């Protein structure tokens, strides 16, 4: 059967894409964990990362520096994109969400503000950059001849790099949250904001840093997706954002490991769907998964039902 023959290859793609979904999903889940809010503009933060990475790559190519090796080009692109996305994320929090949540708006307030911010950012990018697709000249960085052959499976250097970076960033974030003082402060604020403040934590700064970290990961994912698909446009954050949101819900929203796991599982499910059903149904399957999770296991794979800390 033909489908079975291409399955291992599809699983590799699924895993790579899933790792990137997980990276974006972390941004949703971190913000949800700390503010109980879905940052629907996170997809646009990701999209802006992709644009900044594209601009940096195009500039490097046009500068004709010669010897564009991914070993230094990719880190440069990531650094630029992550910084820009982090800035956008922190700005969003400061001007679009903080004025609402500090005045005790209902949970719906920041959510609607996020949808507005999402539309604003999409249109801002469209107006300044044009509605046409931008092309990542990935082939100049990763020649087609760079690949590993494992049996019938061919893993290109690009896919390998993408997976490695996504996994490395996830591990890094997890370590930061579990092992550092900042991570402890983030978890404390997520659990009980008032008591965290009583411990001496500057809650606003921690919330700001949470947006910074989540957005930077989103920006990195933007570069990876840009390099992988080679074409980006101002609307790319919409579907990628929804997919990553699905991954976050699948893993249990608010749970970091859940977001990573959810991303990988969603990537694999998609690759199975592509193999056995029809590539055209890829998005349909992803959202069927979202609906099924919401109906049958709203807390997600790793979601726990911890009684809410009493907040005043």
């Amino acid at each position: 059967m033909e489908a079975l023959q291409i399955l291992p290859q599809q699983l590799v793609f699924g895993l790579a894409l899933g790792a990137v979904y997980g990276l974006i999903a972390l941004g949703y889940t971190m913000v949800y964990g700390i503010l109980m809010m879905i940052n629907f503009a996170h997809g646009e933060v990701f999209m802006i990362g992709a644009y900044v990475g594209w601009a940096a790559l195009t500039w490097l190519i046009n500068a004709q520096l010669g010897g564009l090796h991914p070993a230094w080009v990719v880190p440069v692109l990531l650094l630029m994109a992550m910084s820009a996305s982090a800035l956008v994320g922190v700005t969003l929090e400061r001007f679009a969400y903080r004025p609402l949540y500090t005045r005790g708006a209902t949970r719906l307030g920041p959510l609607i503000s996020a949808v507005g911010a999402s539309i604003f950012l999409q249109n801002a990018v469209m107006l300044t950059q044009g509605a046409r697709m931008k092309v990542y000249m990935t082939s100049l960085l990763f020649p087609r001849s760079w690949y590993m052959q494992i049996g019938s499976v061919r893993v290109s250097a690009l896919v390998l790099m993408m997976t490695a970076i996504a996994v490395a960033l996830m591990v890094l974030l997890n370590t930061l949250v579990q092992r550092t003082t900042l991570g402890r402060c983030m978890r404390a604020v997520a659990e009980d904001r008032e008591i965290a403040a009583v411990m001496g934590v500057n809650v606003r700064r921690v919330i700001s840093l949470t947006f910074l970290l989540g957005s930077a990961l989103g920006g990195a994912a933007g570069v990876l997706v840009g390099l992988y698909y080679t074409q980006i446009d101002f609307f790319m954050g919409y579907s990628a954002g929804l997919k990553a949101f699905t991954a976050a819900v699948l893993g249990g929203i608010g749970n970091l490991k859940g977001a990573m796991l959810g991303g990988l599982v969603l990537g694999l499910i998609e690759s199975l769907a592509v193999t056995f059903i029809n590539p055209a149904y890829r998005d349909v399957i992803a959202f069927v998964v979202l609906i099924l999770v919401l109906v049958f296991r709203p807390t997600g794979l790793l979601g726990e039902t911890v009684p809410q800390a009493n907040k005043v």
Partner: protein
Amino acid sequence: MLDLIDVVASYGPISVLRGVTLRVERGEIVCLLGGNAAGKSTTLKTILGLLRPSAGRITLESRRVDRLATEDIVNCGIALVPESRRVFARMTVWENLAMGAYTRRVAPGDEFAADLERVYGLFPRLKERGQQHAGTLSGGEQQMLAIGRALMARPRLLLMDEPSMGLAPVLVEQVFDIIQTINRQGTTILVVEQNAAVALSIAHRGYVLQDGCIAMQGPAASLLDEDHIRRAYLGED
């Protein structure tokens, strides 16, 4: 050490504190008594800047603190043992204690280790459960953790909100013994309690809050003798 002068505070349109004046001297245990909704917890919240007073002033060692952010107020040397404990349930016991030491910005080095040993000395159960999530502890253990967490800040002034609530009588006695021990070691304590008999038995002075005003004050012994207090809070006829 701590002075509240004519402090007025409200939740939206509902005024809770209507001119509270009280003073805690260095080295004292002061208890704040009162029935439900008398404004006891609100007084602590206002001291900590979790609620902004609309009038009056709060000074800590002659420094005005009522306009400061909560994190800056606690940096002046105040710690809180909150009502119903509010430990970080999804963090380990050790992590909760580390959060308690956050104001001092110490690395988990010698000084931190010494404080940790002091807390573990007071509450050996916490040491056994250091790596357990706080949410898995019993109510009494959580109360010990809440106290230990506050002590990790090495506060000069410790605020305690209903430390006896929900504890078995034997534990209540233990908690109040520990409050006295902490006090003898040099920490000033302001404790809010519904359990007036126990609170007055260890306190130096007391205040009684009623409808957001100080209705009565005096040395603990004389408050214990007041007929009114006996009727209202000690359940005697």
